[in-house]
């Protein structure tokens, strides 16, 4: 194939293909958020709050603080009325 023929074929191919749009015509992030939210929409809020995914994201020192809290309440039961009053 001669160079002229190659150029002709290339021009024909260029003409047959539609130009690509480099920019998106709309923002896809809201749809992505909706899709992420779909799984939690049908579940009640406490199921989402206590889901394995949510619990696994809790750092270890917060678990340690929760343990200290429970041990503290058990160690000082006299403080329970104060707790009830201040919550």
């Amino acid at each position, binding site marked *: 194939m001669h160079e002229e023929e190659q150029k002709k074929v290339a021009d024909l191919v260029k003409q047959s293909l539609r130009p690509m749009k480099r920019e998106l015509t709309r923002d896809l992030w809201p749809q992505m958020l909706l899709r992420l939210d779909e799984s939690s929409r049908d579940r009640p809020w406490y199921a989402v709050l206590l889901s394995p995914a949510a619990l696994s994201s809790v750092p270890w020192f*917060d678990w340690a603080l929760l343990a200290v809290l429970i041990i503290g309440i058990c160690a*000082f039961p006299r403080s329970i009325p104060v707790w009830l009053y*201040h919550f």
Partner: protein
Amino acid sequence: MNTHQYLRAYMAGSAVPTMMLLVVLSGFLAARYSFAIPIPIERAIIFPMALIPNIFGLWNMAYLWTRPRSHLAIGFHGAILPFFIAPVGFLVATCSGFLAATSNGLVWFHQIVVPYAVLAAAFCLALIAYYLVWKYVVGFFNGVLGIA
């Protein structure tokens, strides 16, 4: 979802103590009718029922307002609250007549003596409790209402 941000912050903040109110009231009723502790429920419930939810709501509004300036995490913001709530609570309880300060400690409902050492430990535990509650529960409600 950019409208009424402070109203949503108030609602997210006041939701947690409103739910806890059932636990508090159940505890007071159990103490009064099961353990015969003379708790004046009609006076003792004023602070947990009327003031605490409002304080939580206002504190969450304050968090929303100060967040762009202070960049303080919500857990630490909540942990500051007992420094304000504890004195107010003791003041209301003293004025309502069911809390008295003695040399041995605080006397609640004319029967329950809480030594000052226990009180100090309870305050430290309250800091932890408020940190966890604000970080995970109030933070979750803030996320649900679109202000996180």
